[in-house]
């Protein structure tokens, strides 16, 4: 059977800098796949190409067998690819609820005039979507923060709300760009558990960029290692951990991966 997401030979250059070079990758449905690599390895560029913000110079990206290589970001999102951003990108003046309701926006049908006049139909639709959003809010245990403007929340909670907003799109694929960056130990553990639950209970396939090796090795089904825009290794966490190229290119010469960073 074919993969949920198929990436074939994609390349991207930025004014002479080869950010990603002939990268191929298959993402199986239901997987948690982590993309790791040193800074500038091309991880975020890869994510941006999947979500349509960059279009690759060459190669092909297909979602469920359909080509999305040159599709615009909003249409990629509509097809079920949601994402979070490396720097928190919540709408800060809006409440948690409004941020999440925005994710339902694309699934609501009633038009401008209807939302001006507030037809009963629009209201009914709103209620159904609201229910879904409440489920997500419950799941992320942020019920008490519903009406709080997101800008007023502490950092870790903002990260959590951003995950919730991505979830509100009902994504098939969830792209998470450093969801634990800048979080403390406890926040990381919470986030790791949410990611596992999202994957298991909600069936979302997860593609994760993360620097915390402990988390990556703990929760990933597969790990892909990028260096200088190229894939240098792919496999289960154990396989990658033992790969000599990875040790050399990514984790330094002598230090073995798995000792320093990994938590039990």
């Amino acid at each position: 059977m074919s993969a949920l997401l198929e990436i074939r030979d994609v390349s991207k250059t930025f004014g002479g800098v080869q950010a990603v070079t002939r990268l191929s990758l298959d993402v199986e449905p239901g997987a948690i796949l982590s993309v790791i690599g040193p800074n500038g390895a091309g991880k975020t560029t890869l994510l941006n190409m999947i979500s349509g913000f960059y279009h690759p110079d060459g190669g092909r990206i297909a979602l469920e067998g359909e080509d999305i290589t040159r599709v615009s970001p909003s249409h990629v999102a509509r097809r079920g690819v949601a994402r979070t951003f490396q720097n928190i990108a919540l709408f800060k003046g809006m409440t948690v609820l409004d941020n999440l309701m925005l994710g339902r926006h694309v699934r609501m049908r009633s038009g401008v005039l209807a939302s001006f006049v507030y037809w009963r139909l629009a209201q009914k639709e709103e209620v159904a979507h609201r229910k879904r959003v409440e489920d997500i809010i419950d799941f992320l245990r942020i019920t008490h923060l519903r009406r709080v403007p997101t800008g007023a929340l502490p950092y870790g909670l903002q990260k959590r709300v951003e995950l919730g907003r991505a979830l509100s799109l009902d994504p098939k694929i969830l792209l998470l760009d450093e969801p634990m960056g800048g979080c403390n130990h406890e926040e990381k553990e919470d986030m790791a558990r949410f990611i596992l639950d999202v994957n298991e209970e909600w069936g979302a396939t997860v593609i994760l960029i993360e620097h915390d090796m402990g988390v990556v090795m703990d929760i990933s089904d597969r790990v892909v290692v990028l260096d200088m825009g190229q894939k240098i290794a792919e496999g289960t966490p154990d396989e990658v951990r033992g790969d000599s190229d990875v040790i050399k290119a990514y984790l330094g010469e002598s230090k073995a991966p798995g000792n320093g960073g990994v938590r039990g």
Partner: protein
Amino acid sequence: MGDWQFFALLLSNGILIGLMYSLIALGFVLVYKATDAINFAQGEFVMIAGFVVVGFLISYGAPLWLSLVAALLAMIAFGFGLERAMLRKLIGRPIIAVVMATIGLAAVLRGLGPLLWGADTKPLVLPIGDEPILLEPLFIPPIQLVGATVSLLFLGLFGWFFLKSRKGIAMRAVADSQQVAMAMGINVERYFALAWAMTGVVSALGGVIWGNMLGVDVHLSLVGLKVFPVVILGGLDSIPGAIVGGLIVGVVENVAAGYIDPFVGGGTKDFAPYVVMIIALMVRPYGIFGKQIIERV
């Protein structure tokens, strides 16, 4: 007439005129809020709307209601078309590119109006009489009352739209970050078009009201100049700010004109709001209600 009566008269007039400035400023704010574009052609939008109304009234002999509908539709189409033809191409460019483009557009429109409809001043007559309503010590021209009411109505409507309606919230999301809005599946370009179309609606209303008061010719576009002190005072992206800014500008220019004009022979109306604006800029550069991060133009 006593001193306080004179003052009350200036004040009431200033408030009503101010609300009508708010309406025009609303057009500016809508576009800035949604698209971050600064529209230097707002006054020209109003002028074109006025031209369309009198064009239909006088040249084609159409009834008033038809002329109003025509102006509304024309301005919506104009907003849509402008977004597609000009502004969409400027997305992601430096803000100065948009500013220069709208300044250029303003000049083109000022030329186009008289070219298409003639340079003479045309009356835009509304069936509301011009006998002022006397409420001792005030007397209020009916058009000002109508204008202020329409302004308040639409300010309220758009305020509600942004605060409560789903489309309005999505539009705020677009304004906040186009990139993130796209990642949420929101069609950003469609919201840009919608913002420009809403500005078209506001401009059409402004064109009718101001066209009635000033007559329709190229000078009608000068009401656009009042937009800048209004939005600078209130904040470029704030609808309540447009109301407050409009009230301040209206009251300041009326009171200043009432007390200073007799000594200097007129003209105070035109510069007093700018004096206040400059002072305000030194104290609160982002306006009374604006967000604090604001591009200086």
